């Protein structure tokens, strides 16, 4: 057991926990039995932490016990229908390296491959194909976990307990193994359609159109552009290229690795408003004036931010917060961009996407409509602006994402997640002694 100082990917807040790496189911059960907060009021509980890519405090447990399940990293044989059992500590990176050369692809992948499967299920991650394929939870055959009572249990889709754990942010049990249904692919290449859009209406129209024609779609949005250029962007849509396509790379040629490491510390203030505007202008101009079709590699299409490892260091010591919301109301997207501009808050690396039908978990983030994600340098003065946005998001019938949030106040949670009480009830059945806790659950008073 080591005492470690942990943070989220945004490095905005830190807390100290005792970290262990249990190697067996028995060791996991034993760890859980010592942290029954329902019995011992002074206990701080237990949390499983994956690769720490959640931006806020979802993978932190101040004063408590944190489990790392890197020992649970097996990948079973892939059946003919694409089903495979994967240890919860396996990273998506490892799964891709194993599965792509064999002609299989994860059904859903988020913007980084450096997440554990257990973490991905706990956050019910979504990807560029949500409009067509939903979130990760829709592609599971089973979830094996250890409950708060220390009992191993297999959960199946359709059970209330399954819906409690998927998207449950690690608060309902310690996931040890997940059954996934992979998708067949023929090449390691993507056919990519790139379209530059001059304003928000054009960006949203293009996304609507591309969603009907392509499996994977996303838009980069210039959130610093004003006036008639408000919401201008670049829409990239793609599909797995069939083996027969010109330029399609064979599966065995698949490679994925970081090309550059960012320096360990950069002075804060590197990213000024004018530099961000220059960057955005360059990105917009670099995109072709007319729609193009190109071939792209899997890493460059799905995981562009992984190219520079530890890119979160570029923001300097102050860290940054990521703000992501989903809303059924398209007008809220424009309102959010304008609100940030008027408040002088620079939203950077903004991404817009449409969500399709949502999953069945009460705490699953995606809701049909639109989702906007932005990086914002973490300055105190930003707090009231984001509080105001939270209120507008809640009023619109939308919600923010627990995997990204590090600063929201608890008062909006029940409006944003109307089935929260239902989730709490089901969670209490899986964890009657209140073992699982995180800094997120304490801040938002989830359980």
């Amino acid at each position, binding site marked *: 057991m080591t005492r470690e100082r942990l943070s989220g990917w945004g490095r905005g*807040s830190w*807390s100290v926990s005792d970290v262990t790496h249990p190697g067996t189911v028995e060791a996991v059960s034993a760890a859980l039995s010592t942290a029954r907060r329902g019995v011992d009021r002074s206990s701080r509980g237990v949390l499983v932490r994956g690769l720490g890519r959640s931006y806020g405090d979802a993978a932190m447990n101040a004063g408590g016990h944190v489990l790392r399940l890197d020992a649970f990293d097996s990948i079973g044989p892939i059946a003919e229908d694409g089903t495979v059992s994967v240890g919860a500590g396996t990273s998506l990176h490892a799964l891709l390296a194993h599965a792509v050369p064999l002609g299989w692809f994860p059904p859903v992948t988020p913007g980084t491959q450096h997440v554990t499967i257990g973490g991905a299920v706990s956050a019910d991650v979504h990807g560029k194909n949500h409009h067509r394929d939903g979130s990760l939870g829709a592609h599971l055959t089973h979830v094996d976990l250890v409950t708060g009572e220390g009992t191993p249990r297999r959960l199946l889709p359709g059970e209330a307990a399954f819906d409690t754990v998927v998207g449950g942010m690690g608060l309902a049990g310690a996931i040890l193994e997940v059954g996934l249904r992979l998708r067949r692919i023929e090449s390691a290449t993507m056919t990519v359609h790139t379209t530059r859009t001059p304003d928000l209406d054009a960006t949203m129209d293009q996304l609507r159109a591309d969603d009907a024609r392509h499996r994977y779609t996303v838009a980069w949005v210039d959130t610093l552009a004003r006036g008639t250029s408000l919401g201008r962007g670049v829409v990239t849509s793609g599909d797995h290229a069939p083996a027969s396509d010109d330029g399609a790379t064979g599966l065995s040629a698949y490679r994925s690795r970081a090309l550059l490491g960012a320096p360990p510390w950069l002075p804060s203030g590197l990213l000024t408003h004018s530099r961000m505007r220059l960057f955005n202008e360059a990105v917009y101009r670099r995109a072709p004036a007319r729609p193009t079709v190109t071939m792209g590699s899997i890493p460059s299409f799905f995981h562009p931010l992984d190219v520079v490892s530890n890119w979160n260091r570029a923001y300097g010591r102050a860290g940054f917060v990521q703000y992501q919301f989903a809303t059924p109301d398209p007008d809220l997207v424009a309102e959010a961009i304008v609100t940030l501009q008027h408040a002088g808050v620079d939203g950077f690396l903004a991404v817009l996407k449409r969500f399709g039908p949502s999953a069945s978990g009460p705490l699953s983030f995606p809701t049909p409509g639109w989702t906007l994600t932005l990086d914002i340098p973490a300055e*105190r003065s930003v707090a*009231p602006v984001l509080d105001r946005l939270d209120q507008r998001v809640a009023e619109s019938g939308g919600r923010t994402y627990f995997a990204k949030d590090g600063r929201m*106040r608890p008062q909006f949670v029940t409006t944003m997640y109307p089935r929260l009480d239902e989730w709490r009830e089901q969670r209490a059945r899986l964890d009657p002694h209140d073992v699982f806790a995180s800094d997120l659950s304490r801040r938002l008073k989830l359980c």
Partner: protein
Amino acid sequence: MLTALATPQSVLVLGATSDIATAVLDRLARNAPLERIVLAGRAGAHRDAEVARAGALTTPTGRVEVVDFDALSPEDSGPALEAVFDAGDIDVVILAFGVLPSESDAHDPAAAAAAATVNFTGAVYALTLVGERTRRQGHGTVVVLSSVAGERPRRSNYLYGATKAGLDAFATGLGDALHGTGVSVLVVRPGFVHTKMTSGMAPAPLSVRPEAVADAVVGHLGRGSRTLWVPRTMRPVMSLLRHLPRPVFRRLPI
């Protein structure tokens, strides 16, 4: 825990009627309203007034709590203070109680000792309790209002200076002892601050308002244990004064 924007949800104030503590609460709430404010101090009209004020600084679901605390007999508040932490995490603790002994107090052994008990011993009790509980939490920031008066005793207020010197050393050492536990101790050394405590006195050079102290405190949350001088120029000024030869220092009209 401090959020990703270094804003706290819950604050414990020891010395509820301190003008500086009030200014810090105001400044914190301006960034983000608080979920929980605990005001510890002696019962009375002053404390009641602060409780009423604090009500405006919380979120719709937030609450203000009151604890009886007298630094002359701090152990009486032990169970109540432990209960504050039992009821939920405290993100920021502000230690703001203290007395400025009068000219006559300095000549009365009992009054002088009482001033030392309030400013130093009471603080040792409170900081030890708070240090233990925040360490167990795995996070927390303890703000201790020291003073430049503690840097070198002056013949005009050596009693006050001595109590602050003791408090300062204890708090600084505590901050070092808590390194690596997730808890930070911010030792604040203001010069002359215009508060109830100094009302009627001729202000010294480089005097500030409580808001300036509050700005410095809030600006340093989340940045680790350190000593803050307010205003910042106090640091080189005190360094100069500390190194004057004693026969010279003794004759200064301060």
